[in-house]
């Protein structure tokens, strides 16, 4: 079975992330870039299948600038067999529609039985790219899963819905997206880091792919920064703080 895991490099959520007020795009002085945690969880579930079934092939795929190769390196050192990097200056600032069309074209040329992705990235948070890819490829999407069972020829899983969960299934090939309920990823070990350097990374440019042109795109109209919050009163509890807080809530009509 061939599993392609979609990974995205994003600014670290542990730091302050900045937008360029002129363009609405990520600012250069923004946080360090890391592989999005949700993609690591997706990769972990692919690697667990590989651990149990030696014939499994795991490919990490990303679309992004030069620097995104670091995210692929990490995926390879965790245990992916190979990687695909879609690298093209014309993709800078690509919206979800263009990203999905490009990924779909790359997936078509790479081939797969299963595509695994995160349910949403931490930077864009749109959560639409996997479903767009599924539509381009005319494939079923099992999205927002809290658990999954991937076997030869079929996938099933539990989807987080609004007022509960749903059991869902589909035949292969199919696209799955995982949520944070999936287990945390393993750390790359020493052997993984060493062998990662020898694993193949294919670089694809847009001209090598058949990406349908789209007449539609999203544009940023304006970007405004909210003033940061200031800290207010801070009491050390000496037994009376609860009463003072109750008083504060009453005065501010919050009870």
């Amino acid at each position, binding site marked *: 079975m061939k599993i392609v895991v979609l990974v995205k490099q994003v600014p670290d959520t542990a730091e302050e992330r900045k937008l360029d007020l002129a363009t609405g795009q990520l600012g250069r002085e923004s946080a360090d870039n890391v592989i999005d945690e949700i993609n690591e969880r997706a990769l972990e579930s692919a690697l667990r299948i590989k651990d149990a079934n030696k014939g499994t092939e795991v490919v990490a795929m990303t679309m992004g600038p030069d620097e995104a190769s670091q995210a692929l390196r990490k995926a390879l050192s965790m245990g992916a067999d190979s990687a695909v990097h879609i690298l093209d200056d014309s993709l800078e600032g690509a919206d979800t529609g263009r990203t999905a069309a490009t990924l779909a074209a790359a997936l078509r040329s790479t081939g797969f039985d299963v595509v695994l992705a995160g349910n949403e990235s931490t930077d864009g948070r749109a959560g639409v790219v996997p479903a767009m890819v599924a539509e381009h490829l005319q494939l079923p999407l099992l999205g927002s899963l809290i658990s999954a069972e991937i076997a030869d020829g079929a996938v099933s899983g539990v989807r987080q819905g*609004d007022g509960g969960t749903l059991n869902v299934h589909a035949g292969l090939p199919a696209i799955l997206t995982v949520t944070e309920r999936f287990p945390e990823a393993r750390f790359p070990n020493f052997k993984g880091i060493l062998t990662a350097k020898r694993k193949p990374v294919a670089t694809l440019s847009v001209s090598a792919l058949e990406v349908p042109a789209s007449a539609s795109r999203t544009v940023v109209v304006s970007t405004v920064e909210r003033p940061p919050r200031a800290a207010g009163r801070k009491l050390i509890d000496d037994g009376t703080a609860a009463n003072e807080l109750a008083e504060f809530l009453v005065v501010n009509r919050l009870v």
Partner: protein
Amino acid sequence: MSNVLALIEISHRGEIAASSRGLLVAAATLGSPIAVVVSSEPLADDDVARLGELGAARIYSAVTPAAGTVLVAPAVDALSRAVEAYEPAAVLTTNTADGREAAARLAVRTGGSVLADVVQVRTDNGTVVAQHSVFGGAYTVESAVDGGLPILTIRQGAIEGQAPATTADVSTAVMEATTAGAAVIDRFNDDPVVSARPELRSAATVVSGGRGLGSPENFVLVEQLADALGAAIGASRAAVDAGYIAQTAQVGQTGVSVSPQLYVALGISGAIQHRAGMQTAKTIVAINKDEDAPIFDVADFGIVGDIFTVVPKLVEAIKARSN
């Protein structure tokens, strides 16, 4: 006035989702709202009346045996038919898993673009403009679609108010069940309805608990304060991971974003990813025994103390004052 489609989510038990109100407010802001509803049986009179009350000028009722058994695909089919029939200026869905996936597939099918996680809408000389709250509310970004159908996913609980009530005209379309290229629903597992507490996303007051609660049993402390304040219950990811409470209560970067009048954080350190989901609250109160906890940097009222001594007293003091 231009038509605006709103995909109404109906549960498998036939209940119209609470998010429909905000969705139709947004649709009415942009044009004449057409509610698109997918169901396996023709809509009941009650549902038609309810959608009219919520502001739907027209209902496009797509009836198909695939509703409730095929995942998302029936909604995409219904929306694309309605797009052809009504040539809308925009299509709105809810920013749920179902709503996002329907919006995404529709964008590919119709050559449109998605504006995701929208918190407010307006038109500017006929252009649909969507507002987003980015990086936990640190930025407000407006976006639009250049050259195609704008498809907006509206954040639940973000849009207030009520669209003018109407009596909706109903058009019914019977659709075949297409299952090709779609996932199949085997079973629904409903959450037990446990409380009469307000819904987290739209609650005026939220009380959240973190790892500082220490155990699932101790989480009752959060419930007691929530009930004294008439609040919804939230949590940090660490509290969810530790099994103190269901994942749906998670507030933050990868959980729910809330903007209540009052947010109370109990035993939560205030990691940047938690603050991303609550720092736009009007008033923030924090109780934490670590005086350097970053939650105090955003708190209007902070108490450095033990939640197990402060919170019971607070509950008593609130009860005494509201009597």
